[in-house]
């Protein structure tokens, strides 16, 4: 919200620099996002920093209020005139100007009263009015069509007030104007851009902000008058109100003014509206807007005669009610809207007039011919208004306020102030009395604040007296009784809770703290007892997993958890069946077509990462730990299991200028090595691998990992069809997706460390020829079984096919380590076990010892 300081000063005396005020407001919760200066210099306050403003500062010696005493014709040019300006100097200054709004005064002799203009003396800095780009210039003497000229009368553009360069600024007569005043003192201003959180609905007006300023600076508030002069026939009998939904429309107030003249608003009013970003329209509409900004109570003006015509001879009746099916309304923004059952409306007996609290209808709006005006000040339920704003996509200044909450007390104040301003600016006559229907009274909020609560919540105490003073600065009515304050909330506030004493007290304590200043509350260390601590095993093991994978050389990624079922379907080659999962958590309001649901698998994230990276990185070795989401039948919220994904592709080692062997591209065994290293790092044993049947994987180059009897996941080469689909064909893509919850559940809290052997081992090699289909794991299992206690280690060191091994067979060669802890082994002992192993592989696998 834009807050002009000149307007603010109508209600509160400000005797500190505006930059300091802005800081105080910010600390009190009214965040000042920026400060805009109009002609006045930026202030500098020690310790407070605002961005340097590069606006034009109006020179106090050279940019002055000028009285144009006469406008003469230019002897050589029809499109120029000579303005004779009194700027407080000894003589009148002659300014050559083409300002069209001076032409009506040309050759009319002495002007009395004079025209008040902005006079720029020679040497003054102004914006160049003829430049399309913002450009500053210094006034220099220059002849214009033969007449010397060194000064000028300025347009708004030349002062940097707006883009308007149609004519010069002509100020309306007002008390206190005198030629030669620095123009800074007349038109200079500062606008604070204040950001309001939802709890600050009461500050959504200049008076609302002024109250905070008054409280912060401990100054009195100076309210405008709410008196009005009513001399017309009583309003009673001319209009009536029928509120059908008091919960949604707690109050409705009307006043009537007859015989108005519709015309432009006075300059001061227009200027204020412009300062807050409003376009002036006419005196009646402008005043409804002005009151909205001044006190935060939106008003609506009807053309009374149009209402009367619709009532067809009867007394017009304003009815507020919910919409019925099929009703429509064309609003002031020229949109024809279909109404919904939750929309609260202002109607009459002939139909819908406007959306309550949001926007008027076109039919009964104020027109240049309007004579009699019915002024509405109503109150609306903020939740309902917000709903309608969202469903009807209406954004108005009235809606912005009503949707945050306006107290019903403000309705009548708004009407009183508005109708009187209409009288003053339109010449109309106000009907005596008002129609004020207030079926849903807003209860007065009273809270008893125990002084001890302040210390309990803030950590610092205040006396009852001190606390009462802070609250009174915010216009709370406070009666102290011992250690309790009986507090009555001012009638414009809706944010203090009355029906729950604990919350009500917290609300008041916040107000005390705000005015006292949060920065002034001490910093302390928690003195309270430490809560019971617990072992956080899932997290610790997850972090350990990360550390192991990083140590192996993998980079961690974190991806979007949103994807689309269509994207994930690409992971399954056509004709194959997707793994059975739950349903998708799908978004009702997705932001884009590729992010419509929560992912089922990390594969999609990893393949997309690989694709995005392949242009720059042939070698990728990454992992991701994150949730996947499965919607389950009969369960409101989805399962969110943790998964571990690994992706490796490209050269095994990075290439370099030394032309070392890069080792080729990574393959299944690189990935398996990483998985094995992880399992070793987690001290998991009883690990087994079997051929996998996951449709996204190469059927011959993928494995199902199990630990004990628990299936952990799949690792292997990406199915070539899937690789093609994702455009990842430069090198084999090795991926793994493991059920991290299942895996980490199997991790033991402790593992035993084996003693270091004190006797030398006996090393022997063995080469065994088996059929091609016999898996290495089966051979090793037989060796281990037959080897018994003496066999301490088995490791494969060669796989050989070809001459002299018959086709269809392969030779597997192992290093065997024999050892006991107690003594040095004798050769015969080793020979005996070795023989047993040879026999066992021959018997159980039909293997032969390789010669």
């Amino acid at each position, binding site marked *: 919200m834009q807050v002009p300081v000149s307007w603010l000063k109508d209600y509160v005396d400000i005797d500190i620099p505006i930059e300091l005020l802005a800081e105080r407001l*910010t*600390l009190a*919760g009214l965040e000042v996002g920026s400060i805009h200066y109009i002609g006045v210099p930026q202030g500098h306050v020690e310790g407070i*920093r*605002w*961005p340097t403003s590069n606006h034009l500062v109006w020179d106090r010696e050279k940019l002055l209020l000028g009285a144009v005493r006469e406008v003469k014709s230019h002897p050589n040019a029809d499109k120029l005139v000579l303005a004779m300006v009194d700027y407080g100097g000894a003589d009148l200054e002659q300014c050559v100007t083409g300002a069209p709004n001076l032409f009506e005064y040309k050759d009319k002799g002495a002007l009395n009263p004079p025209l008040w203009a902005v006079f720029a003396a020679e040497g003054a800095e102004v914006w160049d009015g003829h430049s399309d780009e913002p450009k500053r210039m210094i006034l220099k003497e220059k002849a214009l069509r033969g007449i010397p000229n060194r000064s000028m009368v300025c347009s708004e553009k030349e002062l940097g007030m707006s883009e308007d360069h149609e004519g010069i600024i002509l100020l309306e007569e007002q008390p206190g104007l005198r030629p030669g005043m620095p123009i800074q003192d007349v038109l200079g201003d500062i606008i604070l851009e204040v950001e309001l*959180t*939802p*709890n600050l609905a009461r500050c959504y007006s200049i008076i609302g902000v002024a109250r905070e300023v008054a409280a912060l600076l401990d100054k009195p508030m100076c309210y405008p008058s709410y008196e009005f002069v009513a001399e017309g026939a009583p309003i009673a009998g001319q209009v009536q109100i029928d509120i059908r939904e008091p919960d949604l429309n707690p109050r409705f107030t009307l006043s009537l003014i007859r015989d108005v003249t519709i015309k432009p608003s006075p300059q001061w009013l227009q200027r204020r509206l412009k300062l807050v970003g409003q376009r002036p329209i006419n005196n009646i509409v402008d005043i409804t807007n002005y009151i909205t900004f001044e006190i935060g109570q939106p008003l609506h003006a009807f053309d009374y005669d149009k209402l009367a015509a619709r009532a067809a001879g009867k007394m017009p009746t304003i009815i507020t009610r919910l919409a019925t099916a099929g009703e429509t309304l064309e609003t002031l923004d020229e949109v024809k809207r279909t109404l919904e059952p939750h929309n609260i409306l202002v109607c009459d007996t002939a139909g819908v007039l406007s959306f309550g609290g949001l926007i008027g209808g076109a039919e009964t709006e104020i027109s240049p011919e309007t004579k009699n005006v019915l002024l509405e000040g109503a109150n609306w339920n*903020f939740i309902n208004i*917000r709903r309608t704003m969202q469903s009807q996509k209406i954004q108005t200044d009235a809606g912005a306020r009503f949707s945050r909450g306006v107290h019903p007390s403000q309705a009548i104040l708004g009407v009183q102030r508005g109708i009187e301003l209409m009288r003053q600016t339109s010449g109309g006559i106000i009907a005596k009395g008002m129609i004020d229907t207030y079926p849903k009274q807003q209860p007065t909020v009273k809270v008893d604040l125990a002084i001890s609560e302040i*210390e*309990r*919540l*803030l*950590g610092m105490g205040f006396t009852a007296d001190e606390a009462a003073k802070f609250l009174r600065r915010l216009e709370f009515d406070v009666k102290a009784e011992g250690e309790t304050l009986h507090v009555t909330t001012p009638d414009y506030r809706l944010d203090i809770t009355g029906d729950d004493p604990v*919350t009500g007290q*917290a609300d008041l304590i*916040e107000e005390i*703290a705000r005015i006292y200043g*949060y*920065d002034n*509350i*001490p*910093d*302390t260390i*928690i*003195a*309270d*007892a*430490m*809560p019971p*601590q*617990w072992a*956080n095993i899932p997290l610790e093991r997850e972090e350990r997993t990360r550390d192991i994978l990083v140590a192996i*050389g993998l*980079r*961690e*990624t*974190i*991806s*979007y*958890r*949103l994807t689309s079922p269509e994207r994930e379907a690409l992971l399954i080659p056509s004709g194959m069946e997707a793994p059975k999962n739950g349903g998708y*958590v799908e*978004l*009702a*309001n*997705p*932001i884009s077509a590729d992010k419509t649901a*929560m992912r089922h698998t990390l594969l999609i994230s990893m393949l997309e990462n690989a694709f*995005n*990276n392949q242009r720059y990185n042939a070698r*990728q070795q990454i992992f991701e730990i994150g*949730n996947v989401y499965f919607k389950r039948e009969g369960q*409101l*919220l*989805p399962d969110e299991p943790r998964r571990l994904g690994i992706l490796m592709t490209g050269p095994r080692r*990075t290439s*370099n200028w030394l032309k070392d062997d890069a080792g080729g591209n990574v393959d299944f065994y690189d990935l398996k090595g990483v998985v094995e290293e992880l399992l070793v790092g987690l001290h998991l044993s009883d690990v087994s691998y079997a051929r996998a049947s996951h449709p996204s994987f190469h059927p011959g180059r993928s494995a199902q990992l199990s630990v004990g009897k628990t299936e952990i996941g799949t690792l292997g080469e990406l199915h070539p069809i899937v690789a093609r689909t994702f455009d990842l064909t430069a090198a084999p893509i090795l991926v793994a997706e493991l059920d991290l919850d299942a895996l980490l559940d199997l991790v033991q809290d402790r593992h035993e460390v084996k003693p270091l052997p004190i006797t030398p081992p006996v090393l022997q090699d063995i080469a065994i020829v088996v059929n091609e289909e016999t898996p290495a794991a089966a051979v090793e299992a037989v060796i281990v079984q037959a080897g018994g206690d003496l066999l301490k280690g088995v490791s494969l060191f060669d796989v050989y096919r070809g001459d002299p091994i018959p086709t269809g067979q392969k030779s597997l060669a192992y290093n065997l380590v024999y050892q006991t802890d107690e003594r040095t082994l004798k050769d015969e002992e080793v020979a005996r076990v070795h023989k047993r192993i040879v026999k066992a592989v021959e018997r159980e696998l039909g293997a032969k010892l390789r010669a």
Partner: protein
Amino acid sequence: MLNQLESQYSESLAALENVTDSESLHAWEIKYLGKKGSVTLLLRSTGQLPAEERANFGKRANEVKNLLFEAYAAREKLVAEQELALDLEEGALDVTLPGRERPAGGLHPSTQTLRQYAEIWAEMGFQVYRSRDVETDEYNFQLLNFPPHHPARDMQDTFHTTEPNVILRTQTSPGQIRAMHELGENGTQPIRVILPGMVYRYEQITSRSEVQFNQVEGLAIGHNIRMSDLKGTVTEFAKRMYGDNVRLRFRASYFPFTEPGMEIDVECFLCGGEGCRVCKYAGWLEIAGSGMVHPNVLRNGGYDPTIWSGFAFGMGPERATMLKHGIRDIRYFWGNDLRFLEQF
């Protein structure tokens, strides 16, 4: 003979002077001191001399032999030194050529920041409590004092799912309620937790806004938890995070689940508060939203707000990481470009 010996001696010494490498040293040795070397042969011929000359010649010959061996040893040492020096010089590398890469693994920057947060908070007794991403409207909003259609909901644009009242959490705060229910034992136990996790917002993805980001929320509940404790505790955190001389600013603000609520700013650590592009020339950077836990939220967590109180705060690790490293585009975080990740 003696003359011959003396001339061999001086000749061999002169020759040794010219020896510069081990090869010619070896040749010298053979020539003079080898089995058939000239000096050796002279020595051996002692027997052929008349007896009266023998003693004299023998003594001198042995002297010469020893002197030559000494000279040889000295020369050998010198040659070895020279040759080593030459070898070392010839073996010199261009040390400016790049080394062999040993690609390291690394944690995602968000994980690094989350770990740093967790570590600092753990030292103050705050343990990590994690909760689900897909939440009910009740937990994400209603129990946190956001009634349906309340304007406070406009502060957080929400992803709704096709299941009514099920949303993607917009904040980690629903974890506050879950932590209170799980750890509070019906409002009888104090709590000190941080709640890290991914949150989701219905936003356009731009360099400044994302549909998902991490949040770290903190919650302390006890019989005697006060706003001064919140200020002091966050100040301790900020000292660890930004240095001992850090300055904080506490501003009143509003979150439906706090009362009083406040924003915490840290003096811009890039410009020392002088004003720069990053702090938008204000000298301050927002680091946390916080406040005292609202009585309704305490009640919804099972606590009696007349005898229990608590504070809560929320921080954004990605934003903190961006500020720290001058990252201008939040999309880098989930883009996972290795060229970005490798910089951490």
